[in-house]
Each structure stands twice: as C-alpha cells, then as structure tokens.
C-alpha cells in the first residue's frame, strides 16, 4: 500500500481534519521529549472514538504498516518517535474521565487524560492517584502505563504497575481486550503487569482503571543540606536502615540546586554540594513521630543544616524546585541528555563520584537530580547540539554511565523506558536467550511486528554486530568496581 492509498483509506475511517499528512502539520509529532531523535511519519492520525482506533489498527495490520502510539509526547527515550514508513497514532483526543468510583477506590479514564487531571478530578472526594512523575501536568496516563512511570512518591506508593487495576487494550487484530477489573487480582497470567511498561509494543491502551488512595491527613518535608555529595548519598541509606520509608526521598546536586533556585526560587541553600528532600506523610501523630525520628537520623549524618518546611506553602515550594529541575537545567544549557539508570542504593556514593570523574574526563557538566530513595539516578548531561561532536560526546558519556549501572547490579532504565535511545544497552543488560524470550512474547501479541517496531527490544542481529565492536578481549567494563 503506498502513501496515497494509505491516506485515502484513513480518510474513510476519519474526518479529513484528523488525518495529517503535510510536513508542517506533522512537525509537532516528529519527536517526544528526547528531541535528539526526530523524524516525520508518513501520516499522523488523531482519532476520537474507540471504533476508529480499531479500524486504524486493522488497516495497519492487514497492510503491514508500522503503527506508533503517542500520548502526550513527554517520553524521554524516544518511545513515541514516529516510524518514517508508518502511521503515528495520537491518543490525545481520548481525554475523558469515564467513571469515578469512590466506593471501590478507583477511577476509569481514557488514555489521553493527563496524570495530574486524575488527582484533580477526585480531590473533592478526599482521594488522589499516587504516581506523580515530574511531568505530571503534561504526560498522559496511557503513556504512564506504557512506560510504567514513577514519580517522587513511588518510594512509598509504588510505580504505575502498583497503582492500576484494569486496562482496555486494542490488540493488533483490532480486538478489544479487557485486562483486570475493579478487583485486587484476576485469574490467569498477570497481563496487567506485562502490559505495563511494554512501550506500545503489545497493544494500544484505550482505557485505564487507576487505584485511588485517601489523601494523607498531613505531609511534612525536611530539606537537608550537605557539603559533600557522598555524605548525602550515605544519609539516604541511613534513613532506610532506620526503618523509615519516606513518601519521597529525592536528591539534587550543586548544579541542579543552582539551576532550580535561579528558575523558581524555592529557597534552596546555594552553598550546599547536595540537598535531600525527605517527605513524611500519614496521620498527624504518625508524621510528628516520624519527623522526630528522621531528625535524629539526619543529625548523625553530618549535614550542614536541615530544616522542616514551616508552612504548607513552603513545603510546596521545596517540591516545586525539585519538580521544575529538568526545565531549570534546560535554561542553563542549550541541551541536556537525561539518563535513568537505577542501582542498589549502597553504591550511590561510589557511582556519583565516578560519574563526576567520567564527566570531567570529557569536559562535560553533569547535573544530578533524582529519586535517591529508589536508587534511580537521573544524571543530566549538559551539552550544546550546535557544537560539532558534543551530542556524540554526551551520548558516549551516557552509555558509559549505563554500563556503570549494569556493572554494580543495576539497570539501564528505572522509569523512562528503553525506547530507541537505550536499545543498544539492552544488549549489555540481557543475554541472547532472554532477548529471544522477549521477542517470543512480542510475537504472541503482534506476530507481524507492526506496533512500535525497532523500539525497546533489540534484534539479536543488532546485538551481535554491537558485541563485535564492544567486547575488548572478553573483559567486562569497569573491572575496578565491586561486582554484585
């Protein structure tokens, strides 16, 4: 089927205004949040009814046309990067909240509903949806499910996978499959877990039933400043070791602190090498008790100073700085590249130091702002795409950081997904038989391979070619590191 025929067929399914094929109309869809990768699809469609999506999927399936789903396009791994020979399926028009069910503590929403819109819609019932990615004002729940998004509160409340109950998914044959329900489990295989984080490769998510939680009676945050990033990293382990599971435990380093302070003035200490934001929530008595305990633990970790937010406004201000950290860093550098490796917490001091050394070695700056309690790093590598070679240098540094994460028993991605970006590192993280198992699973859902081709799971061929380039005399990278 050529482009003309494809567009004609799509216009049978959709009004002409919802089928975009001109370059300028499609520009906004050429990339997601990882703009280093961008390309135009053959055609972009913006359906608004489920039957239309089913018809589009069937059309693509019958004609072996690649189909890439897109939520809000805030992804950071190029997952929603269009296929130049395919259709880009925007789910933005599916933005209705279908049902709020306070008795069963859940809400059912369409995939294009923004993450924050859910909590806003149920706030008057004293409820909220827990996962809160920093992109929550923009990102869609469909994209959250596809990436298994986390947030600053997932240390205590879990990731997307822990906070959804049911999905409606359109499979490649155009059928609607209901997975899970308003129950705490469902019979058979855990397809809810399998679909979560599947990056648009197994089906199109059309409806999500999310779990709602009662809002905590009280929240309190402590900001602790350290003169050494290693000390801050050690404090993270000490807090957990004391039996405290904070609602959020985030770290920012000097560069990130400065950028955030310049951007939105949250009142961060500019003389600190690192800060920790540690939030406790629960009922009034519990928060008081835990905050006391936390202060005792922090006191022993040798901070420069630490303070509890004095008012709710100040608490929100502390978090505003953290949540705006990415755009804030975006202001101090023409471009940045956000990494997402996750490591066992005890390696934090060592790995942060090593990242700084690697960065210094290639003359690039790195700002760190991340989910310390989960060991989920977000080194932001600053570069200027207009300087020849800098992007490649940043990518090279990023790849080295990910190899470091693997070497200490961690993973290349904690919450942003593999997408197109980390496809090569998948070859380091998994053996051939494991990748084959992933392909076999993909084949169970999408034998023709039309859904988001070339993403998330590399072909064995690609890994073999890469292996030939990367293995040096059978040595593992970073022999100096303690192995897991």
């Amino acid at each position, binding site marked *: 089927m050529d482009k003309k025929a494809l567009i004609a067929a799509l216009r049978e399914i959709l009004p002409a205004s919802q089928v975009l094929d001109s370059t300028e109309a499609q520009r906004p869809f050429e990339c997601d949040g990882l703009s280093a990768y961008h390309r135009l699809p053959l055609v972009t469609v913006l359906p608004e009814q489920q039957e239309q999506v089913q018809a589009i999927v069937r059309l693509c399936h019958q004609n072996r046309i690649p189909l890439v789903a897109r939520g809000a396009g805030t992804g950071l791994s190029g997952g929603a990067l269009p296929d130049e020979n395919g259709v880009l399926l925007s789910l933005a028009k599916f933005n209705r909240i279908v049902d709020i069910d306070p008795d069963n503590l859940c809400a059912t929403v369409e995939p294009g509903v923004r993450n924050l819109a859910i909590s806003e819609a149920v706030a008057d019932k004293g409820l909220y949806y827990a996962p809160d990615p920093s992109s929550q004002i923009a990102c869609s729940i469909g994209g959250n499910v596809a990436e298994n998004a986390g947030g600053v509160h997932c240390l205590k409340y879990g990731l997307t996978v822990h906070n959804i109950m049911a999905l409606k998914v359109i499979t490649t044959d155009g059928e609607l499959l209901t997975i899970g329900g308003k129950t705490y*489990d469902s019979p058979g295989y855990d397809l809810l877990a399998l679909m979560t984080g599947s990056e648009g490769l197994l089906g199109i998510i059309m409806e999500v039933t999310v779990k709602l939680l009662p809002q905590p009676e009280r929240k309190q945050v402590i900001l602790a400043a350290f003169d050494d990033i290693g000390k801050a990293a050690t404090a993270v382990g000490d807090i957990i070791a004391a039996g405290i599971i904070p609602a959020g435990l985030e770290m920012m380093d000097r560069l990130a602190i400065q950028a955030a302070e310049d951007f939105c003035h949250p009142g961060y200490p500019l003389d600190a090498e690192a800060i920790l934001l540690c939030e406790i929530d629960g009922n009034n008595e519990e928060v008081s008790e835990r905050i006391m305990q936390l202060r005792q633990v922090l006191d022993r970790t040798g901070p420069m100073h630490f303070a509890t937010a004095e008012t709710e406004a100040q608490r929100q201000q502390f978090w505003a700085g953290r949540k705006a950290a990415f755009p804030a860093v975006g202001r101090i550098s023409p471009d940045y590249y956000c990494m997402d490796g996750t490591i066992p917490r*005890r390696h934090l001091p060592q790995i942060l130091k090593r990242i700084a050394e690697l960065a210094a070695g290639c003359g690039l700056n790195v700002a760190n702002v991340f989910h310390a309690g989960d060991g989920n790093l977000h080194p932001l590598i600053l570069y200027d795409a207009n300087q020849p070679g800098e992007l490649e240098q940043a990518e090279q540094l990023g790849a080295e950081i990910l190899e470091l994460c693997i070497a200490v028993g961690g993973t290349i991605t*904690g919450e*942003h997904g593999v997408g197109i970006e980390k496809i090569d590192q998948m070859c380091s993280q998994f053996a051939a038989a494991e990748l084959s*198992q992933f392909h076999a699973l993909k084949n169970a859902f999408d034998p023709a391979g039309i859904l988001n081709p070339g993403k998330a799971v590399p072909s064995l061929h690609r890994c073999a070619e890469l292996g030939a380039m990367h293995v040096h005399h059978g040595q593992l990278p970073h022999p100096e590191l303690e192995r897991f």
Partner: protein
Amino acid sequence: MSDRTEELQGRIKQAMASDSPLQIQAGGSKSFLCRQTTAQPLSVKGHSGIINYDPTELVLTARAGTSLKEIEQTLAASQQILPFEPPFFDDGATLGGAIATGLSGPIRPFTGSARDYVLGCQIINGKGEILKFGGQVMKNVAGYDVSRLMVGAMGTLGLLLEISIKVLPAFPNQLYLQQSHPPQEALRFMRRLSSQNLPLSGLAYEGDKVHIRLAGSGSAVKAAAAKIGGEQPADDPFWHELKEQTHAFFDGELALWRLSLPAATAYLNLPGKQLIDWGGALRWLKSDEPSRNLFQLAAGCAGHARLFRGGEADLDRIQPQLPAMRAIHQKIKHSFDPHGILNPGQLYSGF
C-alpha cells in the same frame, strides 16, 4: 542449602527430548490448588538458600526452594517482613510456591500483593534455557515485566530458580479492634474505613464481627484506634487463623470457594457460610453450590471465582476465560514452553 540449577535444567531438557510433561513440586503446602495429573513430578526441594540479603537495600534474593519460614526468620532478625503476608498452609511452604501461586494474606489491600513485591527472577523456560529478568533494584523497566508474569502462573511458564523480593521494615506496633455489625452494615463500615487515611493492615468480617487490624508507629495506631472505636483485645488470633485458614470457619467437608470481587459489592445471599476479607474484596465461601453458578455469579459482579479447596477434582478450578483471553494465554504459554512440558493443565485445562 544447595544449587541444583544444572540438574533441574538437565531434567527439563530431558523431558523436552522425550516429550514427557513435568509437574513441578516443592514443599507441597499448596498442592491442593493443583490438579492431579499424570505428569512426571519434578521436585525443586533442596534448591534452596538465601543468596543475598542486605537490609538497607530492602531486597532479599533466595532460591525458589527456600522455606518461607527461613526467609521470614531471617527478615525478622533485621526487623523486616515480607509485606504481602504470604500464607504458609504448612511448614513446608517455599518462596517458589508462594510466588507461583501468587497468594497474599489479609494485608493485601493495604500494602500490596506478592506480585507487587517481586523485583526479579531467574527461571528455566520450557526450552531448558536459564533466563534472568528484572533485578535487585526498586525500579526497572528494561524489557517486558516477565518477573511479575511468573506470579500466579502456577509454574506453567517456567521453573522458578531464584526470586528477588522487595521487603519492608516491620511495623513497630499493631493494634486490634472488633465491632459487631449485621452483614450489609459491616460492608459499608469497612468501605468507610478504607476510604480514610488510616494505618490499616487488615479488615475482615466473620460471624457478626468486623475485625480491624492497625499497624504502624505507636502514635499512629493509637490515634486511629481512638478514632474508629470498638472493643480492643490485646491480641486477635483471628488474623493468623485467617491467613493460614486454620480458623473454625474453614473446617468441614464443604468445598471452599474464593470470590474476588469489587470491594463495594453488596452482601451476597448465598447457600453456605461466608467470611469476608480484604475490606469486602475477598469473599470466602464454604458451599456445595455448583461451580457453574458460582462462576456465573462472580462474573455478574465483575469479579471471579476460584475453587480453592475440595470440590470436584477434574474441574477447571478457575473462572473460565473469554475466547480472546484464552487465545492470548495460549500464545504466551507457547512462547515460554513451546513443547507444553511445564505443569500442563495446572492453570487451565488444555495448556
């Protein structure tokens, strides 16, 4: 404590070559959930031992044949717990069995289920390949979530070798409350409590009593108890008896059914007797009601039923699936076990 990986892999390859299905077994504590088949038993007993446990990481990795008892004792020494309260049913209970059956105890609505705490696993698939998925870190989205897919799969997708579990600090304090209510009112009461920010760790109804369990810091549970009110026994053995199904409710010859329903489902007037757990979302039923009726009833309530103990032996014990769902299950099974040698029929008949 020993590593039987090679031997187990050999057995699976052999079974594959001779096309003879295997029935994976461990402690046998949950074998009543399994169907008796003619498959060759393959015991993972002895493939055991805690491989890695660092309390500050909140992760424990153990071989599948490790006893739950050993794991809970090890965790207790560092004031930590398996947060999903897995039932043992027998001292032989193993970690592998807990994960393969995917069962969680009364705490489930409040802290999460077995699958919620699985971080990674190592398996042998039906092709005799040793595969590792997930890991020992809190967050990991590299590749499909195969580790969680193993939970509740009843060993039909792979033989579990090693499992990494997220653990949590133990609750420093627990408090118990009881209030008497008629059934419909009890359900409404439990829903009201669930929708408030309370340190709940159990909410069940038996006889005419709502049993409430609170867990958390001393001040938190005391404040919550004052707010909720009711009788406050020093201990409530009910919770252990419920988790282990040693409570008198579970006695007797009648089949035991497990109905997993939306929590706010009204009280169901059914023949037999009921015990309600999970704040309304789990209804245990001792009844001789025919399977067909119960499957239909559960589906009508947007939930599902499972024949848990007793009942007719050759029956599918799990809610029947819609054709599209069954088809995708068969394909997933095939992707892990193309020769159909791992626990065939243990989840659904036919694959």
